[in-house]
Each structure stands twice: as C-alpha cells, then as structure tokens.
C-alpha cells in the first residue's frame, strides 16, 4: 500500500548515498519481485477464508426470513430473499429503536472519539515539543496506567459516576472514551517527527502565541496522524460494550452493541419476542459503516501502524 512504499526509497537512498551510483546496474536485479508462490498463496488463503466465513455467513443470513433461518443451509441462500424487508423491519421494530441506537452510537463516536483525538493531539504535541518540569512523571504515569486492565476500572468508575449522578446519562459513556493513552503516544511520536523545530522558532520570532502556533501551523502538519488516531478511537467507541452496558439502564441511551445484545437476550427469554432475524440484520447494519471506513481510509491506518515511518 501507499504508506510504506512511499517512505522506503527515501530512507535507503538518504542514509546510504554511496550506493547511488551503483543503482542503475543493480536495479533490475533488486527490483525484480520475488517469485510469486501459488502454494503460499493457497496456505495463507486458508486464514483469509477463516477470517471471512463468519462475515459471509452474516451477509447470507441477513437475507433470510426467520423461518428460512431454521430451514436452510447456513452458507447458502434460502428460497426467498428478504434482505430489504429485514432491513425495513430492523429499522422500524419497536418504534424505530434501532435508528435511535444508531444515532446514539454516532453521537458517542463524534463526542468521545473526536474529543479523545483532540486531547491526544494537544497533549502529544506538548510532550513532543516542550521541555517542562514533571515531564518524565507524566510519561511514567500514563504508560503505567496502560498496564491497568481497562475493564478492571469499569466497576469502580461506575460506582464513582453513580455517586456523581452521571450514570444513565450519555456523559457516563463519553467521558471515559475521551482518554486514549495510545492515541497520546502516537501523536507524541508523530508530532516529534512531523513538526520541525525550526518552524516553531520561526513562528515564535514572528510573535505568534503558542496556541495560535499549534492550531494554525502544527495542526495541518499533524493531519495524517489525526486521522489515524480518530479512526482507531472511533472503532473503540463504536465497539464499546462493557462500559455502556454497566452505565446505562434506559434503552433510549443504548448504543448499537448493547441494543443488539438486548434483542438477542429477549429472544432467549421465555415468552420474549423471538427476533433472531433482526439480530442478524442489525449486526450486519452495525458493521457495514466500520468496514466501509476501514476500506476507504486504508492509507491512514496503514500509516498509523507504521507510525515512525510517516513523514507526510
């Protein structure tokens, strides 16, 4: 993909200039791609099949009626194609509660992941470009906290938030989503690389204030890192289950994950309305936006994972 290939030639070329004259003669030999192997492709293909089968299963079964689910083979279509009808019923069931959950999820993602990205960018920049008293302590505390199991914090956070009267409100989901220690770390290494010190010095000489420098000069340079952090925090918020599960009682505030599980639980309760078809179609609708985001923004998560290698 684009990110790594863009950086590689620059790096080898830059660090070993004495090789440069040899290049023209070497290139055909070196650039010659390793021979493709059918055997290796097939073997790796097994892992791909493993990765995709459940998604294919979901897609196929979202096209079935409830009766079709029970009467047909799982990995093939049944006689009637009910996908559109299933989607319609998923969106309208119980006064359109699914649409409500979808908009809740979007709200939590925008507020939680957006806020987390901003805090990480500002903080990471501060760590990368300033030398201040207590910096080492900040580093130690943040890295130490990463080792603390997040779910272990959930129950105490719940108890604390209930003392503060925050449970069963959107704040209970949004506030904990605002912190991404790894987002901070990523922005820190990214800012250290992407923003030249000379640029800051020049801006300071021009008399610009520190925050003005950050928002006007540095933020645009941080854009690729921002998208990466935003992508990962969005996925984390979109997929969040444990936290909203314990924080929220009112179904009107549920995100999709908790809502879907409630539907599933309802189907398994004696006397409950059996809505497996809606659970399956709802699951499909839940993952489509994420998969689309990942496919469209490939360049960014690739580059984010290769953090040090990206220089824009």
């Amino acid at each position, binding site marked *: 993909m684009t990110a790594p290939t863009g950086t590689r030639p620059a790096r080898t070329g830059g660090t070993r200039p004495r090789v440069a004259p040899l290049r023209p003669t070497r290139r055909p030999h070196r650039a010659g791609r390793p021979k493709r192997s059918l055997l290796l492709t097939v073997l790796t293909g097994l892992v791909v099949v493993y*990765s995709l089968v459940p998604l294919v299963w979901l897609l196929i079964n979202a096209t079935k009626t409830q009766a079709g689910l029970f009467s047909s083979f799982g990995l093939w279509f049944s006689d009637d194609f009910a996908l559109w009808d299933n989607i319609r019923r998923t969106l309208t069931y119980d006064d359109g509660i699914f649409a409500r959950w979808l908009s809740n999820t979007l709200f939590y993602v925008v507020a939680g992941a957006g806020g987390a990205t901003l805090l990480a960018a500002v*903080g990471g920049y501060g760590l990368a470009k300033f030398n201040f008293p207590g910096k080492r302590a900040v580093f130690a505390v943040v890295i130490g906290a990463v*080792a603390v199991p997040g779910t272990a914090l959930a129950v105490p956070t719940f108890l604390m938030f209930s003392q503060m009267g925050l449970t069963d409100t959107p704040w209970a989901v949004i506030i904990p989503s605002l912190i991404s220690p790894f987002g901070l770390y990523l922005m820190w290494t990214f800012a250290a690389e992407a923003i030249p010190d000379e640029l800051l010095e020049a801006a300071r000489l021009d008399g610009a204030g520190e925050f003005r420098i950050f928002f006007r000069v540095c933020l645009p340079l941080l854009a690729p890192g921002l998208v990466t952090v935003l992508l990962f925090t969005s996925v984390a918020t979109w997929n969040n289950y444990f936290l909203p599960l314990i924080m929220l009682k009112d179904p009107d505030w549920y995100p999709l994950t908790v809502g879907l599980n409630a539907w599933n639980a309802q189907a398994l309760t004696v006397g409950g309305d059996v809505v497996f078809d809606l659970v399956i179609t709802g699951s499909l609708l839940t993952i489509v936006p994420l998969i689309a*985001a990942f496919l469209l923004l490939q360049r960014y998560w690739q580059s984010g994972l290769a953090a040090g290698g990206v220089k824009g």
Partner: protein
Amino acid sequence: MAPPQPATVVPDGQESATSGAGTPGTARAKLPRRRRSWVGWRFVGPFLAVFALVFLAPIVYSIYLSFFRNRLVGGNSFVGLDNYQQVLADPQFWSGVGRVSLFLVVQVPVMLFLALLVALAVDSGRLYGRNFFRLAVFLPYAVPAVVATLMWGFMYGTRFGLVGNINEALGITLPDPLSPEWVLASIGNIVTWEFIGYNMLIFYSALQVIPRSLYESAEIDGASQLRVITSIKLPALRGALMIATIFSIIGSFQLFNEPSILQKLVPNAITTDFTPNLYAYSLSFSGQQYNSSATVAIVMGVITMIVAYVVQLRGMRKDG
C-alpha cells in the same frame, strides 16, 4: 477485549531528538539543551485532567472500597485487609483465574503464531494479491466483540448454526461447541478470529521498517529465505512480539465480553464466575457486593501487571 493501538511498535531510531525524555529507544543524551518552561503543561494539562478523572480516581476509589465493608447492621466500616483475605481464599475467584490462565497459555500462542505466519507471508512478496490478503485478515478487527460473539454463537448453534448443518449433512455428531467442556475453546476461537489481523498488522509494520539494504546484503551472501527469516526478520520482530504478547496477556486476563454475551445462550456452560471480570461484574450488579468486587478488580490488576512485567523482563534478558 479492546486492545490499544500498536503505536509503540516502531522503534526505527529516526525520531527527532526532541521527542523527549521518556520516548523509548531515544537516547537521553540527544536531548537538546532547551530551556525548561511551564508552557508545555498548558498542552498536556487537559489530557491529564480527564485522565485523572477516568483513570486515577477510579483506581484510588477502588483501593478505598477494598478496605471497607458495607454491612446491613453497622453500615460502612473499615475492615483492613479482610476483603483481600476473603478474595484470596475464594475458590470461585481462583477458578476464574485458572480458566483465563489456561486460555492465555493456549489461545495466545496459537493466535500470535498464526498472525506471525500471515505477516511473514504478506511481507515476503510471494503472494498473489497481497493487499487483498492484508485487508481481508484485518477486517474482523473492525467487527464489534458483540457482533462477533453473536455471529459465532449462532454458527456454533445446533439449531440453525453451521454445526447443526454439518451434523445434518454428514450424519455425524460433532462435539457441541457450547457444551461446558468445549465452551472455553469456542471462546478462544472467537477471540483468535477477532485479533489475528490486528496482531498480523503489528508484525507486518515492524517488518516494513527493516532496511532493504539488509536483504540486499543477505542476497549477495547467498542466504536462503529461511535464513533471512531467522537471522533478519525474527530478530527485528522481537519488540513487536513483546508488545503483542503483553496486550494479549492483558486481554486474556480481562476476558469479559465474549463469555458475558454467550452466557445468554448457554447459562449452564458459562457460570457467573467464569472469568474474574465476569465474577467482579456479577458481584457488583447481582450481589451489590461492591467492596468485594473492587477487591477482585484490584487483585486482578496486580496479577496482570506482575505477569506482564515478568514477561517483559524475560524478553529483555533474551535481548541481551
């Protein structure tokens, strides 16, 4: 399990010298002599304020809770280490710890090994359509644990699941993946499915920063593919492997989402003390025993940190 991002994976030694005091892999000597000032705090401050509220305060609060007990008669009273004694002597707690330890020892190596193989295969450039491979294997990471568990749960089912289909088609009886004997393995499969691609990308990113010149030299020396893997690629992956292992340890000890959702399908196979986290959850929300619950959370946090720390130490020793 919600693993953090693998940003730490890329110690490529090119960080600018300003990257600061704590950045691993940066020699402290490289720090330019710059005037220390408090300006940096204005940037780091907002993050730290929220961090204190959602990370530090709950830790402090749960430590406080763990030293008290709420009795019907007498109210809230200080009990010293009683809660710890109680948790450490609690067979339900230890059965959960045993289960996640078994999970850790079996599932994590299988997952990381598969991820490593795929990363090496994609990196080798010998695959047809390698971008497709990388994307397809990574896709499950975008699927919420809830949806992943519901999907696999349905597929495991004998009614309209794949297992039922296979039994019917072949006239055999496969072991029921949701029976008490098999359910832990079934959960292991779900977690493996979710995180192979994620770990594969950690490894792949680490492989991508290996300087091409190393391969060129190896080629000139006539090194075999296998030799290139064992002498160049695997040593370069050590840091990434360490990170992935530690994330996986944390993830295993925190196991909650998958068993909690499957529990609805098979209440008999997954008890309320199935994992320590599930136990802490049911202590809090079914039993109202907040003090015991906080104590379980702390003990698990300490165990996790100790294990992660020991693994890290061992890894570093092998480095030297």
